[in-house]
């Protein structure tokens, strides 16, 4: 038993060590009026930052929260749907399947760190390139319809879906292959409607893998957003929780409200996580 703890320790220290201080710092800072623009020690202000966020329209908290929710929810749903479709498309052997699988895999392994740069330049072209015109028209159309910055957000979403659907697809394909093939064969024998087969058999059988895939795709959705803020210095993205926090913290120097803003993401994510854990391993079916 001691050996088990010793083996686990380095990984736990590694993860907790990187996370502990930042999380604690954010939590503390969110309760203070810390700002580099003001001399003197930070004062404890209780929950004032949070109250301010919720009530003062200057912080644009509610629009940003709505946009974040829309972004994560939409991309998450699309990624899941596309990924599941891809997994089912690739479930049974056919000629050329290996090549299609490879093609599906590539968007995810195409390193996003540089892909995001390429994506950003393509959609916001720098010079008069051969495709600038098209990209500019698109941008104008979308921004015109949904407000300034909408195209930037939508394009990040598109990028995230391209990449995330690939990951989800391959992940769920592995899930499909982990389920005994008999279970799907039996459904083919007994169920006349593919639609009902999907809802009564495929989805319940894949439930744990769907849950994990959703969770991983949520976190990568947020990570892609983060990459784009950094790349563009927070300039071009539609107000989302993260961008607002970046603005407040780095540009406006209001670290307290910025920390509070960032932390509002944690409870909903934790809630989703809890729900997903229940799906992965429901207590009444737990073995042993």
């Amino acid at each position, binding site marked *: 038993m001691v050996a088990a703890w010793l083996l686990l320790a380095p990984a736990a220290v590694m993860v907790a060590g990187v996370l502990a201080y930042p999380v604690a710092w954010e939590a503390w800072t969110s309760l203070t009026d810390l700002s580099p623009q003001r001399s003197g020690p930070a004062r404890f202000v209780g929950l004032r930052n949070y109250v301010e966020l919720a009530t003062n329209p200057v912080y644009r908290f509610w629009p940003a929260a709505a946009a974040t929710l829309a972004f994560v929810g939409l991309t998450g749903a699309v990624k899941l749907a596309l990924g599941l479709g891809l997994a089912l498309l690739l479930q049974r052997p056919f000629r050329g399947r290996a090549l299609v699988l490879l093609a599906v895999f*590539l968007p*995810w392994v*195409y*390193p996003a*760190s540089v892909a995001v740069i390429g994506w950003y330049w393509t959609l916001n072209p720098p010079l008069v390139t051969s*495709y600038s015109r098209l990209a500019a028209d698109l941008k104008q159309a979308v921004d015109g319809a949904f407000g300034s910055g909408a195209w930037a957000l939508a394009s990040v979403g598109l990028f995230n879906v391209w990449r995330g659907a690939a990951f989800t697809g391959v992940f769920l394909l592995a899930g499909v292959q982990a389920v005994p093939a008999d279970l799907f064969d039996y459904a083919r024998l007994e169920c006349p409607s593919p639609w009902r087969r999907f809802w009564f058999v495929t989805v319940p059988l894949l439930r744990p893998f769907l849950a994990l895939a959703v969770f991983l795709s949520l976190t990568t959705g947020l*990570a892609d957003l983060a990459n784009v803020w*950094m790349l563009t210095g927070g300039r071009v993205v539609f107000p989302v929780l993260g961008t607002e926090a970046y603005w407040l913290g780095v540009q406006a120097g209001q670290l307290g409200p910025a920390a509070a803003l960032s932390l509002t993401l944690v409870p909903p*994510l934790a809630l989703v996580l809890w729900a997903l854990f229940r799906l992965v391993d429901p207590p009444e079916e737990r073995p042993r």
Partner: protein
Amino acid sequence: MTRRRLRGLGRGGLCALVVAGALFPISFMLVQALKTPQEDVFGHPLIVRAPTLDNFRELFGEARQERGLVGRVLLRTYPVVRWLENTLLVFGASIVLTLGLSVMAGYGLGWLRPPGWRGWRRGLLATYAIPHTILFIPLYQVVIRLGLEDSLAALILTYPMLALPFCVWLLSAYWERLPRALEDAARVDGASRPAVFFRILLPLSTPVLVAAGVFTLGTVASDFMLASVFLTDPRVQTLPVGVGTMDVGLEELPAVAAINLLAIPLALLCGVFVRSYVRGLAAAMAEGA
């Protein structure tokens, strides 16, 4: 017969659509990188008529294109070789570190199963619920306190956080399901516990290890944020951060070339392992997560 053919045709069409959608952005980027400046402005967006490697050569400072007065004056040289070295070092070290730690933790949780092992595994996975966007300001303070600013070590030490929880889950889920008799048989033959691990469990787990490795590489290679916060000195930057600082207005073509320089080999490297990746994931997921 017609019905089956119709189904085959439908699947073929879907596959074609999927392949096109997946590869279009990749091929688009590659096509831009192969264009001459003339074609970049006046050519077809999706096709390159006279492909050239000049952009790659220019990136390494070997050939300088005539780009007009403004361009010639303002062109900088970039330590691209250095960036590549840094990138490979960071990726390689993070993968080794992540895999090493996840193998240890995975074995501890999945095979030795101390009390509460399931909770620990969930706890690790739960760290994904902390959005990384909230981390970089305080993390940067820590990095400065430790004197690691502009050091690759800062990245190597933080990257495992991104992939470790998943890899631990993957490996421990696989080992959890391997029959205990594997160890009993070997121990009856006089093998020690470590010997059982290195001679039997680890070799049996190659596909799962490959899956964990590919996942780590894919995750680490997708980070731009942490790298751009920690590394500001061009001499120690990784390629993504370096390219991110290039001035697009003037040097779009070499920049696009640089993107391809890293992305295409990495994507193909992972592509080679796609089968193992699926097999490894499936092995770990078999019989419910």
